[in-house]
């Protein structure tokens, strides 16, 4: 079993962080994982994306070209990657930032107004975690124990005050 994720959006939306949480969760569950960011000038203000692979077997190529799951957090990302998703795959759309609908008919689509949900609940900047929560729930992998361990790895002790917000956002996504 191997799942390839592509997280895509603007720099500053926590795209890389979301991927990292998922990767750490996989690691905690003793899976093989890889996380590969886009890098370079496009990171500043432009699009950001990262490839995450969670697999039972060792990970081969770490670059996700045809994701099983695409997380699109802005319109350019959906435009760019929609056609790359494998048939039968999943596209998660932040519908507070993307007005159009997904054109593909052979994939599962989830519209979640994550950015709006975040700001309505005093969780600005945590739309990424709301989507992560949804993502894990959909895969039947919302495991509080491993999520907690992954959060501890991703959020340094210095920022421990942020833990509770992240938990809340993940839960909100799960319950959406």
């Amino acid at each position: 079993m191997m799942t390839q994720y592509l997280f895509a959006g603007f720099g500053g939306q926590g795209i890389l962080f979301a991927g990292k949480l998922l990767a750490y969760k996989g690691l905690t569950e003793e899976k093989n994982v890889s996380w590969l960011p886009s890098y370079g000038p496009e990171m500043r203000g432009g699009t950001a994306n990262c490839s995450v692979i969670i697999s039972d077997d060792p990970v081969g190529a770490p670059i996700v070209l045809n994701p099983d799951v695409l997380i699109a957090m802005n319109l350019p990302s959906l435009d760019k990657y929609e056609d790359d998703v494998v048939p039968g795959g999943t596209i998660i759309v932040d519908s507070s930032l993307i007005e159009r609908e997904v054109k593909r008919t052979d994939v599962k689509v989830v519209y979640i107004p994550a950015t709006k949900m975040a700001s309505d609940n005093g969780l600005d900047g945590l739309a990424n975690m709301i989507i992560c929560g949804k993502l894990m729930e959909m895969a039947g992998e919302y495991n509080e124990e491993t999520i907690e361990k992954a959060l501890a790895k991703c959020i340094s002790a210095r920022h421990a005050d942020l833990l509770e917000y992240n938990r809340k956002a993940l839960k909100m996504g799960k319950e959406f």
Partner: protein
Amino acid sequence: MADKVLMKGNEAIAEAAIIAGCRHYFGYPITPQTEIAAYMAKQMPKIGGTFLQAESEIAAINMVYGVSSAGKRVMTSSSSPGISLKGEGISYLAGADLPALIVNAQRGGPGLGGIQPSQSDYFQATRGGGHGDYHLIVLTPASVQEMAELTIKGFELADKYRMPAMILADGTIGQMMEPVSFDFEVAPQIEKPWATTGTKMERKHNIVNSLYLDPATLEVKNIERYERYKIVEENETMYEEYMADDADIVLAAFGIAARVAKSAVNEARKQGIKAGLIRPITVWPFPKAPFKKAVEHCKAIISVELSMGQMIEDVKLASEMKVPVTLTSRVGGMIPTPNQILEDIKKAAEGGR
């Protein structure tokens, strides 16, 4: 099992260097390897080490030359254009028989090129890169774990054979995060009686030098160095074979290309084609033996590279061209897909190329 952490390949190199006892790092900013410098800048002051951002790549490699002369483990890191600048210093390190670790997180070239991953510095790395007859020990990690392990190995081999070692990585392996464990043994550092650390009035002065104006002396120096290289070739060649034993089609690939190639091999096997992979881990010394063995049973070899075809020359030499050797590649920062490789495997299996 020791606790594994998720870490970028570049950071794993830096952490492993510290574990290896390296306390001096000199570098100059260039994408995509800056995480190494950033990690060192943060960690070195905490452990009494030296991190110094040099005024240039040229200065950085010469600072490395200085610390190495004084007998301490030292490293620098850069990416392709920066390695070209270091070429002079690397030649001097080789000429003065000084150990050091140099990391090249390759990016597309030539010239300023791009910042995306590449393997087009293969010739530069394996043929020396600077002027004169010399080699570096060139290690090519294909995972974050290997970034760490080969860094330690690089320091050990460099000290043992008194020659510079290079980690020939690329932007992808440098930037990606994978689980890595730092639970490994590090051999105690060997004595360096040749180092210029001050005579303490107890011995004749040591000289670190690459200048020999007498041609006969310089010839002897070169021949002696190549005798040492021969021992390195005999003892330190490393490679991995993956389903190569019975393969009809053998892929040759290192680093990031080898990972994509492995995915292609798995897919080919699923489709009933006997594909396999030979992954050189040292590209100097180049592993000739597995190719000699492979040509006894395989129909073709495909060199998979992120270059216009550089390692393929070594593959042709090692296989003595007993079977057709072809190239599958992407360049300029592009990476071949498993499908692209699979298509070429199929063509080769049908003998239709």
